């Protein structure tokens, strides 16, 4: 009897272990099973994200299939709302996100700098390029080039700019045609817009000439990519500057009016950053989600279904960042995930930049 008992408990143990072993993704260390089990016990992962829920339905389904028992509670909001809620809730010790996945790179870095991100070395970290990880806490998950969009019906091929200088030239030379027909981010209203403008100023020595041209042409300043693309598609605007390429590509799939151009002098690349919250109620589930986002499996789905190019160095297919980077060569300038992004959030420096921008625009 005692022997039978021993055998059965051994059998149970083996069964348990093999069961958990079966779900540890390939290539992960064995003790990852602890995280998986922990996640299953927690039962769900709360994700605050800026990525449209529609785009990630496939991703969520696959995650839940890969890790049965862990439900994804996904809330998509705009980047300020993500920040607002997370900060307020953390301060109040209320239930909040386990993982934050936002395209607002500077805000994500601020949250990390404020100690709200949990350090976690992801097993997938090695597959990411240098610029894409910060102190094993914050990780870039996508590779999204910034694009110039134009209305294919109304903009002739020779007008399509190939460099940033081309943009300035076009707007100055063909003033009549493009008067009030250009749109871009309002850098005061849009955090992303501000960040991109900051980066532009870094790489483009003639950036302020471009801004002057934008101002002279009475450019429409908007606060979201969606509205800009809507206006370009309808022909209300002919050119959209500093548009998120991923959105443009998704839209272009359905909308034959949208044309996309990348610049050869330099082309910024944005990424959506993810981290696990320090005070996450479901920390294991959070880590599971983070790793999944960075895994080949997850990246394949995001790049195929959501037009968010993969960021892993070992993915080279058609929707991969690596392939895109190869095409544009050295022009590709991914925005690095580090504390440089915080300078834009310094109040004095920010206001200074804004003032400079407004003056160049000729608005004040």
């Amino acid at each position: 009897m005692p022997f039978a008992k021993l055998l059965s408990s051994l059998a149970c143990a083996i069964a348990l272990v093999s069961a958990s072993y079966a779900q540890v993704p390939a290539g992960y260390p064995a003790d990852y099973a602890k995280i998986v089990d922990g996640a299953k016990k927690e039962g769900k992962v709360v994700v605050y994200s800026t990525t449209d829920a529609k785009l990630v339905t496939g991703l969520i389904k696959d995650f839940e299939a890969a890790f049965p028992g862990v439900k994804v509670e996904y809330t998509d909001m705009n980047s300020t709302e993500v920040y607002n809620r997370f900060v307020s809730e953390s301060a109040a010790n209320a239930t909040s996100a386990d993982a934050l996945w936002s395209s607002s790179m500077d805000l994500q870095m601020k949250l990390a700098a404020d100690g709200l991100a949990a350090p976690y070395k992801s097993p997938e970290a090695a597959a990411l390029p240098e610029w894409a990880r910060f102190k094993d806490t914050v990780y870039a998950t996508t590779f999204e080039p910034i694009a110039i969009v134009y209305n294919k019906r109304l903009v002739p091929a020779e007008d399509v700019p190939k460099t940033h200088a081309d943009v300035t030239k076009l707007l100055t030379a063909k003033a009549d045609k493009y008067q009030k027909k250009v749109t871009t981010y309002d850098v005061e209203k849009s955090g992303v817009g501000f960040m991109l403008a900051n980066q532009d100023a870094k790489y483009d020595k003639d950036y302020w000439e471009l801004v002057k041209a934008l101002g002279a042409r009475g450019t429409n300043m908007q606060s979201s990519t969606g509205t800009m693309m809507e206006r370009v598609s309808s022909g209300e605007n002919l050119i959209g500057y500093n548009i998120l390429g991923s959105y443009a590509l998704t839209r272009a799939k359905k909308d034959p009016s949208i044309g996309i151009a990348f610049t050869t002098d330099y082309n910024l690349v944005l990424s959506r950053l993810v981290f696990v919250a320090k005070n996450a109620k479901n920390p294991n589930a959070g880590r599971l989600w983070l790793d999944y986002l960075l895994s080949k499996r997850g990246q394949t789905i995001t790049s195929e279904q959501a037009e968010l190019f993969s960021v892993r160095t070992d993915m080279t297919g058609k929707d991969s960042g690596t392939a895109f980077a190869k095409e544009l060569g050295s022009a590709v300038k991914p925005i690095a995930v580090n504390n440089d992004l915080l300078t834009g959030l310094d109040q004095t420096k920010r206001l200074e930049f804004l003032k400079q921008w407004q003056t160049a625009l000729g608005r004040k």
Partner: protein
Amino acid sequence: MFDPSMTTRGISIPRTTVVAITALVIFMPLGLIFWQSFLNAPFFNPAHRFGFDAYAFIFADSDFWTAFLNSVLIAGAMVVIALPLGAALAFLLTRTDLPWQRTIEVLVLIPVFVSPMVLAFGYVVAMGPVGFYSLWVKQLVGDVPWNVYSLFSIAVIAGLTHVPHVYLYSSAALKSLGSDVEEAARVVGANPLRVALNVSLPMTMPALFYAAVLVFFLGFELFGLPLVLGDPEGHLVLSTYLYKLTNKLGTPSYHLMAAVAVCIVAVTFPLVLLQRWLLKTAGKYVSVKGKATRQKVLPLGGWKWVALAIVAAWLMFTIVVPISGIALRAFVDQWGEGINLADVLTLDNFRGVLDAKDQVRAIINTLLIGTVGGGLAVACYTAIGLASHRQSGGVVKILDYIVMIPRAIPGLLAGLAFLWIFLFVPGLKELRNSIFSVWLAYTVVWLAYGMRLISSALLQIGPELEESARTVGASGARVLKDVTIPLIRFGLLASWLLVFMIFEREYSTGVYLLTQGTEVIGSMLVSLWSAGAIDQVAALSLINIALVAVGLAVALRFGVRLHE
């Protein structure tokens, strides 16, 4: 306003409780905003310090002053446009023999119940640089003669969409005007036009002043319209400036937003007080009617067609144009210059809405909040109304003033304040994620409006009806239960329907309370608009309009008079 002839002594404890709760839900958000404006960081940030930094910043920001000036200009323009039109419309519909009066009366009130965001968006799609109507006109005359994004257009559109507010108050005043004073003028020799100018107009002055103050005040709070139409050319008003502060410094600057909110309240609250004072002054113009004589309508003769043309033009511009714009946009997948409409008709946008779980949830939540939430809100307003029914004295006066306060706070900030309250007040955390938080925010923000509905229903009851019940032996509470409430049940029903429509079109209050599970159509529209998902916005807007239209139809079917 309150009849002091009967004081009830029986139910003071529940009354005090009601007043206390009301005061609490009003002053907490306001107090929070006030306090926040005097800090230099979010109040929950341990590094915050007391100071005037926030005010210093906004007063030094030229954008603030531009926004302030624009708000004043637009509010003023709105009064200039809406007041004459609304008064004229009221006169035409109550005093003349204009044909189709019943229908026009209903149509005139539509803009009140359509969300301004939806209307603004409709104008972009209909009359924007490549809007449907713009392109047709361009084909005819070669150019688009208007710019829907200019400050002028915003002011004009805002003015025209607020005509119904002026109309409501003017027509109520005209209807209660004793016909004998006008007949007396005619008998001494004044022709109908002189009667209108020398008698009817001066006697409705208090109502017109009240309406003017209301429109100016609404102009200050304008959010959806300038958000959509002001962005492209950068025209700011105070509320959009506040919204912009969300991003200007990189991280949301609550203290700045609170400071701006305090500035807005500093302007709107005196206006609210002014309104109250005007209401009291109007009392002395109440005419004592003789025998009920039928009001003789003024025959318009040939002028009938001119009047109809003006009314039709207003209806066309204010209702038909934007709504047709949205309707069209909801049924196409692309639009603009060079597109043939017939090629792009589709139902995909609606399918997209139905596919998106959060949007379906938004529709359901909105319906719930409108029907169940509306009913609960009316119950609360009734409790508050009954607490001060037939009372005079300190408590009631306090209640009278404090219910006005929430009106003065922009919906946007009220929603944010409620988010903080739910987060930080112990015990409320669990309720935050439920739709209860949205419901509470709505109920408080619309407190003044709901109270007016209830108190006008209560005013209809002659005090003798309740007094007779007391004399046969009913206690104060029983009187309420057996006499008062049954007598106002029709008024309660009407209030419920009106609150339903208001809650349906609400959009700014829920913006910060939006979480998974508490989405409502209004705030979904704001976030979808910001994300640029215009086709969804159009489809969802159309659904929203349909819901409101159903509510309106039900209301009319029950004979609810919308003029209260």
